[in-house]
């Protein structure tokens, strides 16, 4: 399971990296196709250095990888890590799906069942 492979510190980095709108936008773009830092910078009303910093944060979280090609630094998306972040969110969702399913079962019963919650 993906989550098991993801170190706790790694998870922190991923969530922190994805907490910023510009960085999410960068990830979205480079998952579609690789793009140079210069080209990325042209999409945002911020300095080249600022965009470079965002890319560095994403790189540390292994959401993107950066390669030098000639004079350009090409950024590409790292699909597996993005999936792992999604898997973490899925966990929370699964907890609640389980609860809602059990509520549904409970409501379908005429009489509440004996308490399963008591320790034996």
């Amino acid at each position: 399971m993906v989550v098991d492979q993801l170190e706790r510190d790694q998870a922190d980095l991923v969530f922190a990296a994805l907490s910023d709108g510009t960085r999410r936008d960068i990830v979205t773009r480079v998952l579609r196709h690789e793009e140079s830092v210069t080209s990325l910078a042209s999409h945002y009303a911020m300095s080249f250095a600022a965009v470079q910093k965002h890319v560095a944060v994403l790189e540390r979280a292994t959401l993107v990888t950066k390669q030098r090609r000639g004079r350009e630094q090409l950024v590409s998306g790292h699909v597996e890590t993005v999936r792992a972040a999604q898997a973490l969110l899925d966990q929370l969702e699964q907890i609640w799906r389980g609860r809602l399913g059990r509520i549904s079962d409970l409501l379908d019963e005429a009489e509440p069942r004996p308490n399963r919650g008591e320790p034996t």
Partner: protein
Amino acid sequence: MTVIDVTTSTTERTLTLTAQFGAPPERVWQVWSDPRQLELWWGPPTWPATFVDHDFVVDGRAGYYMTGPEGEKAHGWWRFVSIDEPSSLVFDDGFSDDDGRPDESMPTMRARVELEATDGGTRMTVTTTYASIEEMEKVVAMGMVEGMTGAAGQIDVVLAGGRPERPDC
């Protein structure tokens, strides 16, 4: 499946689920207000919950523990923020230490439950919000329960965090 809609937002630190039940709001309300019914569903089958307190008034507290397969216990607390029978309930949910005392250093989550009568039943919306991204990470990283599926979902859902489709959630 009873779940009819799910929205997650990493920026808003919010998970919203909407479910449809074939019982009126007055009946659905009881699964929250009656601790004996609550403990039938709050914990997963392998980690059943036992509520030791359930002071169902505004500012009242509930205390519970979930018992794991090895007999280990995970303690938690609730504080009821608002109660409007049978349509809405807001409470904070946090972790307690092994003696059942609220642990303030641990993440806290706010849950808002809304019940709406529909044709033939109830639509229930549960919105859970974490105080910060860090708290959300902690809860997830602690692996609250086992048995989760590791389904790799849609990348777009994570990335859509900054553009929630329902800003009112």
